[in-house]
């Protein structure tokens, strides 16, 4: 049983997805989805523990030995990302029960939960697989279910947002599969370890840089690096609240992981950084993402949209850390992956609470909410502090590492950009705080605090974002070890 753990992490949710679709009632399908998510959480935690104790776990599917068969290859980075996805999935599914009951009709709820489980399965699959074509399959599982989840939004504009994401996401997926195909033509293998061994011999051939370019563009489209982020704001704004919280904390993060996997494990540091000089592309784009997207966020009046643009800026921080190509930089990137998942999840959940009671997240409808919904707005403020990077929060930890990584390479200007980005985050978070706490409430609307079913998951993430901000040793150790494994390449 326990040697099958890597497979069970994926296939237990996979078999529960059709069950959730078949049970037909909202509560029952929710129970199935909750079982799937909590199972995934337990399994991912056990997997991370085992990788920490025993090192890399390799699992061959169908009894075919790699490189011919598909293998799951779980190292520290993949186990950590799988755990992030499973944690957010497990917290969000609790939140979804109340929020989806209001947003989605009874007959569609089973399909919603089936798609939710499939999305979770796909994202965890990308994290633990060791086969590049299997990556593409899982990417499609998660993306297709994500399009459906977004399209289920209450607002009719959710349909166009999902369609936009579908087109952009398919372009990204196509680029990825072209890149994989070109690598396969040159090496005759799809296994990541095998590819890493065979690629250096053919790296002089023009095909490999082309494959590298296709993969880079495809994955950066999926992770919404500026200027390929155009699908993201609409998708996050109009999706159901629970979906936004889930997607914002997981989907782009897994794509960042995928980029790390391709750059460091498959192509290797020497090819990607020394040969292709990737940092010359990634660093400027990340800096522009941080500055431009924070600026755009300041001018938004719809708070979900504001947070969506802030997400694009935060992806800039992750990519900035990775672009340094140093252990410290990649550590900062991986840490921010986890930390941003916590705080953005909490922020979007708080906005879901507002949506639940007010029916809108526009700033002009939020006046005086600090009095009417004290717990919701307190959660928003505390998670917002984390986004700004105030000490004692997770946001501070990641920015600390990021600035250190910048200074290590003598990049003073880049360190300055991180500071300016934090100040801009202060401006857009303050904008919401000002309206909610100092605005005059509309006397015609009697507003109550959000139900506990929404508040408890929100506060779990808020407390976690302080917990891991005060005691960052565990996460920092895992992130450093993961970064070291990635940069060392394959044994």
């Amino acid at each position, binding site marked *: 049983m326990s040697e099958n753990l890597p497979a069970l992490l994926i296939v237990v949710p996979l078999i529960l997805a*059709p069950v959730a679709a078949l049970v037909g009632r909202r509560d029952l399908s929710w129970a199935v989805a909750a079982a799937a998510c909590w199972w995934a959480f337990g399994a991912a935690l056990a997997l991370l523990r085992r990788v920490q104790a025993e090192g890399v776990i390799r699992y061959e599917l169908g009894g075919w030995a790699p490189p011919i068969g598909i293998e799951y290859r779980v190292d520290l980075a993949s186990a950590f990302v799988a755990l992030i996805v499973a944690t957010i999935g497990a917290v969000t599914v609790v939140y979804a029960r109340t929020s989806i009951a209001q947003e989605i009709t009874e007959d569609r709820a089973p399909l919603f939960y089936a798609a939710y489980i499939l999305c979770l399965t796909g994202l965890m699959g990308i994290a633990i697989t060791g086969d590049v074509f299997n990556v593409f399959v899982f990417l499609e599982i998660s993306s297709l279910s994500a399009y459906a989840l977004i399209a289920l939004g209450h607002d009719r504009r959710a349909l166009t947002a999902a369609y936009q994401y579908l087109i952009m996401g398919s372009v990204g997926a196509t680029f990825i599969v072209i890149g994989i195909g070109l690598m396969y033509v040159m090496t005759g293998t799809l296994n990541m370890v095998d590819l890493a061994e065979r690629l250096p011999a053919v790296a002089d051939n023009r095909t490999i840089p082309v494959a590298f370019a296709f993969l880079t563009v495809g994955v950066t489209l999926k992770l919404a690096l500026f200027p390929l982020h155009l699908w993201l704001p609409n998708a996050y704004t109009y999706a159901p609240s629970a979906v936004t919280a889930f997607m914002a904390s997981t989907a782009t993060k897994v794509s960042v992981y995928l980029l790390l996997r391709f750059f460091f494990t498959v192509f290797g540091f020497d090819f990607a950084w020394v040969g292709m000089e990737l940092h010359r592309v990634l660093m400027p784009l990340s800096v522009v993402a941080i500055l431009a997207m924070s600026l755009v966020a300041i001018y938004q009046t719809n708070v979900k949209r504001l947070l969506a643009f802030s997400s694009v800026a935060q992806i800039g921080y992750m990519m900035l850390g990775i672009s340094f190509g140093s252990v410290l930089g990649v550590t900062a990137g991986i840490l921010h992956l986890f930390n941003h998942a916590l705080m953005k999840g909490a922020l979007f959940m708080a906005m879901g609470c507002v949506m639940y009671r007010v029916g809108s997240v526009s700033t002009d409808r939020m006046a005086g909410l600090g009095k009417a919904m004290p717990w919701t707005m307190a959660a928003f403020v505390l998670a917002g502090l984390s986004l700004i990077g105030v000490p004692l929060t997770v946001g501070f930890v990641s920015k600390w590492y990021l600035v250190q990584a910048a200074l290590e390479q003598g990049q003073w200007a880049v360190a300055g950009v991180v500071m300016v980005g934090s100040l801009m985050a202060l401006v857009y978070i303050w904008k919401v705080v000002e309206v909610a706490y100092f605005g005059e409430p509309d006397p015609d609307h009697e507003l109550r605090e959000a139900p506990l079913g929404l508040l408890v998951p929100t506060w779990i993430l808020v407390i976690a974002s302080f917990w891991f901000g005060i005691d960052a040793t565990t996460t920092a150790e895992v992130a450093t070890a993961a970064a070291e494994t990635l940069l060392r390449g394959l044994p």
Partner: protein
Amino acid sequence: MDDRVILRVGAKILIPFILIFALYVQFHGDYGPGGGFQAGVIFAAAFVLYALIYGLGNVVRVLPPKAAYVCGALGVSIFVGVGFVTMALGGGFLDYGVLAHDPAHGQHYGILGVELGVLITVFGVMVALFYAFAGRRRIEP
């Protein structure tokens, strides 16, 4: 289409053979080209042809939308279920060798089971898609 005698009679003759051919593609899949996906599409094509000639109302009586929906989910369960059986018998996920005493037979049974799951899902989804477009109204799950 009451006056199109040739179409009606032709479809009536063709449909059983299409269904049989789908099953041939399915069960011949491990010896030659074919398999669950192609078989599922061919199987669904028989229903689409029936709907085109005899009308959507008649085909819905044969295969209600609810049944197509269930098929779509059931097939996935069969596929993953085979994987669970192999794990319960002590092998890895989808390690068909453990399904029978002779590993070669085990591979055979395993492939057939998995492909059957693929057939059912592809068939269900194809028909559901056709219903969704042909009906121009929501298919109640």
